[in-house]
């Protein structure tokens, strides 16, 4: 039954196959909320570029989270809308716990459309809330993601991330592309195309800029680029290697790894490249800084103890202490948005896999089961972790739910996709 459901989910998610990045889901959440997203009355007049309807995008979003099960809704005559009297008994008989009804109205003098929807608790037989949006034809997907975010937050108590964006690097032959796409893989747009490698994209906290490392000058240099302005700004181009940018939570500085004074050490630098100041002073390797969400700590990778392990220090560089002890290779720390857990890459019997460490209880859980996993990145609500892996010799991204149960695989046609970075929530 579980396998069958997963297969159905896979089919439902395939609607986005037109996108460069396609998604396949495996596994299901422990308890999924059965929800009926009825076709919005009149929505056939307002399709997105791929021909998808608003209700189909909302339903696919919710299912992709692993927390919802979208129910089949038959064609209803007359079609119910947000202002219909709800026949709760009928929706209950369809096993729905929650219901979305709505409508689309065109014919406005400015050519825009109006979408209204309302969310109902079928069990309690009450309306939870609703919103109306006016939108132009090119905003169908953005509007559907907003509706899904609303439903997700009302029913789970947590922020939805359907309106967020992800960045990643695609390698096609000898060509490297830094891409930005919607969280569902749609709407992929290149920020940078180069014949030399690009790694380590990092979103600024306001989601407007991305820091990354490009080898376009034959060595690693840190750049910052506004996602709307096709202009690279050099942040760190010192002697040796410049890499591993991480934004401070207030966006005022970047932590970077520089080798200008010898081995790789961690520095803070302003996003305009000014005022570099050294934080670590060891004879070994210190790299991969990651701020805690409160900005007080920097987690990082260091081989000061003889093997690469994760440490943390204060954001001023003081009081370094070791965090990981099990295993001989623990790297790429990423702190969860609530600051309570740490995702990182660990070598486990010769395989490189992503682990999740509860910083309070010290409990460790393996999130992935492949051989060459890397670059974990938390969704801004902490519910999923995006990582890069190799499947069948090709680079793909996997989004794993924080409980390890639901996995989505994101692939591109004819290319390797890697170096994922999940963007922030945009208010």
């Amino acid at each position, binding site marked *: 039954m579980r396998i069958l459901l997963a297969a159905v989910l896979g089919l439902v998610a395939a609607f986005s196959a037109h996108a460069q990045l396609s998604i396949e889901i495996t596994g299901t959440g422990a308890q999924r909320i059965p929800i009926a997203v009825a076709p919005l009355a009149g929505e056939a007049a307002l399709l997105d570029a791929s021909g998808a309807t608003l209700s189909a995008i909302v339903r696919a979003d919710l299912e992709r989270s692993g927390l919802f099960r979208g129910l089949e809704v038959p064609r209803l005559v007359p079609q119910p809308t947000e*202002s219909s009297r709800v026949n709760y008994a009928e929706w209950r008989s369809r096993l729905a716990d929650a219901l979305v009804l709505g409508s689309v109205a065109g014919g406005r003098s400015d050519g825009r459309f109006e979408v209204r929807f309302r969310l109902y608790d079928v069990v309690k037989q009450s309306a939870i809330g609703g919103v109306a949006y006016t939108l132009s034809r090119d905003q169908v997907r953005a509007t559907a993601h907003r509706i899904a975010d609303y439903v997700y937050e009302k029913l789970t108590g947590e922020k939805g991330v359907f309106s967020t964006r992800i960045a990643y690097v695609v390698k096609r032959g000898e060509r490297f592309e830094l891409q930005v796409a919607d969280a569902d893989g749609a709407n992929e747009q290149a920020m940078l195309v180069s014949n030399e490698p690009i790694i380590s994209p990092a979103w600024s906290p306001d989601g407007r800029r991305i820091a990354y490392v490009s080898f376009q000058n034959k060595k690693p240099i840190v750049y910052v680029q506004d996602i709307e302005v096709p202009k690279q700004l050099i942040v760190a181009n010192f002697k040796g290697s410049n*890499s591993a940018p991480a934004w401070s939570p207030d966006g005022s500085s970047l932590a970077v790894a520089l080798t200008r004074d010898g081995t790789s050490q961690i520095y803070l630098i302003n996003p305009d490249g000014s005022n570099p100041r050294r934080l670590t002073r060891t004879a070994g390797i210190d790299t991969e800084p990651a701020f805690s969400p409160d900005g007080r700590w920097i987690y990082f990778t260091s081989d000061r103890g003889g093997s690469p392990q994760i440490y943390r220090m204060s954001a001023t560089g003081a009081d370094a202490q070791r965090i990981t002890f099990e295993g001989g290779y623990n790297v790429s720390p990423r702190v969860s948005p609530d600051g309570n857990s740490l995702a990182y890459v660990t070598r486990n019997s010769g395989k490189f896999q992503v682990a999740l460490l509860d910083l309070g209880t010290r409990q460790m859980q393996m999130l992935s089961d492949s051989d060459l996993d890397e670059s974990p990145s938390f969704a801004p609500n902490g519910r999923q972790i995006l990582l890069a892996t190799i499947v069948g010799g090709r680079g793909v991204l996997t989004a794993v739910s924080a409980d390890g149960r639901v996995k989505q695989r994101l692939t591109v046609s004819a290319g390797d996709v890697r170096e994922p970075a999940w963007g922030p929530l945009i208010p």
Partner: protein
Amino acid sequence: MRALWTLVIASALAACATTETPQTQPPAGVEDRAPGTAPSGPGTQGVPPKPVTGVDLTGGRPATSQADPLRDPASILSQRSVYYDFDKYDIKDDYKPMIEAHARYLRENGRIKMLIQGNTDERGSREYNIALGQRRAEGVKRMLMLLGTREEQLEAVSLGEEKPKEVGHTEEAWARNRRSDMLYPGEY
């Protein structure tokens, strides 16, 4: 100079990209208000994603290459690579005669510069591998300096796991990619 030139190209390309990109943004998007009679939700301000505009650096690059005595296969100077064990950066004794030969060559040709590129295999973290590749390259640089090469003649950089000589996920490919290369002008 090379760095500057590339920058000029990059900015020129950026400038082109700017002019080709429509500057008008779509109007701020999805408005948010409650339906007439419905209980209204909290503000789900509808800001549609902004379009992304990018930089293209893939335009042709002039290749510089010239006949070079360093490429005589009979000479030890034609050997350029030091290989390492996983997560290691110590230089095995086998490579010392080769590094000594290059140190001698650099001493005798004090105006010639060398770029040392450190590389790693694909396993583990890309960023840790940049640091590890740098450490490998620095190790070669340090040995050349101990053998009398002036620091001004040497630059050590890391390519991490990003430029594998051997593509593939096998022990053999990994072993060939854990490497420092000593390169002379025109070779990189």
